[in-house]
């Protein structure tokens, strides 16, 4: 991929911990960009439909990119700057979806 590469030893490199795994990022990026750059295409699951979701609007309006940061829930990744040592948990709704709360709307699917 093109663009700025994220290595933890690069100038401006920071390390974010995502579900316990160390993820390199670049100081100045948003969490959304840093996560996407490292292949995290799915950020959470919608609590009503159980579908996989990720960032959509990039400007804090849609709330699709909510992740947990340093214990704070429902942080919009598109507005959150990365910081060295950040602890990120993806998809708090993942547990609910797995418990069967989601998938209540099987008719809502992509063709």
């Amino acid at each position: 991929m093109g663009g700025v590469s994220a290595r933890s030893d690069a100038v401006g490199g920071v390390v974010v911990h995502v579900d316990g795994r160390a993820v390199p990022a670049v100081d100045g990026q948003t969490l959304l960009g840093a996560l996407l750059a490292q292949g995290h295409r799915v950020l959470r699951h919608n609590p009503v439909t159980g579908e996989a979701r990720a960032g959509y609007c990039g400007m804090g309006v849609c709330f699709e990119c909510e992740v947990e940061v340093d214990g704070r829930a429902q942080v919009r990744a598109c507005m959150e700057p990365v910081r060295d040592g950040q602890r990120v948990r993806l998809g708090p709704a993942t547990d609910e979806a797995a418990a069967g709360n989601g998938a209540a709307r099987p008719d809502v699917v992509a063709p």
Partner: protein
Amino acid sequence: MSRSAGARHVDVDAVVVGGGAAGMVAARDLARAGASVALLDEHHELGGQYYRRRSGAVLVRDGDLRPRGTRLAAEVRAAGVAVHTATTVWGVGDDRRTVLATRAAGDGVLRVRGTTAVVATGAHERSVPFPGWQLPGVVTPGCALHLATIDRVPVGRRTAVAGSGPFLLPVACALLDVGVEVVGVFEAGRPYRPDRRALDAARYPRRLVELGGYLARLARAGVRVHQGWHVAAAHGDPAVEGIRLRGPGGREREIAVDAAAVGFGFRPNTELLALFGAEVRPDPATWDLVPVCDELGRTSVPGLVAAGEARGVAGVHAATVRGALAAVAAAEHLGLRGDDEIDPRLLRRARAADAFARLTAARYPVPHRLVAAAPDATLVCRCEGVTAGEVRAAAATGWNDMDATKGASRAGMGPCQGRQCAYAVAELVRQRTGTAPRRVFSPQMPLKPVRVAELLAGTAPSTATATPAVPAPPAAAVGSGGSTNGRSPGTAVPGVGAP
């Protein structure tokens, strides 16, 4: 709820909501005119969307994307404006004058009361739903742009840019900058055909040069701009793997992509203006609501001025001028202006910008027919999982205004408060009933989700009242899916009501 050490109250001459181009110009000019000004913005830095800044190592390595915006933000601070970033305005107090906000730090409610208020809350992108638009990897053009320019991250390896509007072109170019293979730009309309109307654009040579630059860049990179094509569906599991496009004569083609940036222009954020009680009306070009205001942006509420895209979508140059005009109106309300005449150049620039906005809207008409084309199973309300079929059914049973349809279907009740679906819901209702509903849900507080714990932060149980102590509710977020953040239940607080 009584005021306490945790909640903060600020009294100023002018409160400006929104730190984008219009808000920054308005705040700076008002401060220079001698007013005490508080500028509030939800983001951690000033700039809004167009002037969203690079920071940190990205800034050092790749340079300042928007030096003009950086200068503006510096001028705002140098003028003595009290800048409150990472501060989300979510409501208006009972006095219809005090702005209610919470900070990301979560230290209680910030109440800012201005003798005058400038609302420069900008706009958000218009979405037209299609099957699969909720898949990871399908984003708005603005999202793809910010990822490319601010984060320097490609939204995908192979990406389509689609929808309608002049914005698609700079987005496609920005994607090329970060190494994306742009498989094509698919414009639903036909704005680039040479016809007589196109000649009107010749009166705006700088805009034409800008447009020509994008088209040339795309041509050099072999990226075709297709006209009359739209995304009929996206598919993939769990993220997008391909899109089906539909074009003239019903032709279809499938393209493998791992991202798609799809959007249809912008809609003004008028919710805060409506909470203040400002009169709004449908914009004849788009049917979106805009505030009723004069050339300076004065609304139907004395002392309340609208600026920038919140007045109606017209671009950053219009926003800058409207910010200056808003400062004039607010300064007049504060008695800070003598008999100074308004700079006629400002008014000329404003009129030219408005005329160009009307030309643009006519060139890129919103394709309402695409909403009609959405199959019943298409997701319309992303937050609450409401389909087009459910909205159509709700409309058919007589629930044919926006708020009743919302009540019957739950569309619009989620965290985004209908910002992503209101356009489509209104169009579905209109198509089913023939009536033209307002194209927004009635705004209500909180405009954005707020944690109960944030509302309660700093309130001390010892500020005793005659009412018996009641157990605190679980610290759920108001207006969105529940979540706890560690506040212990059972802590007595002196009543929990609207702040």
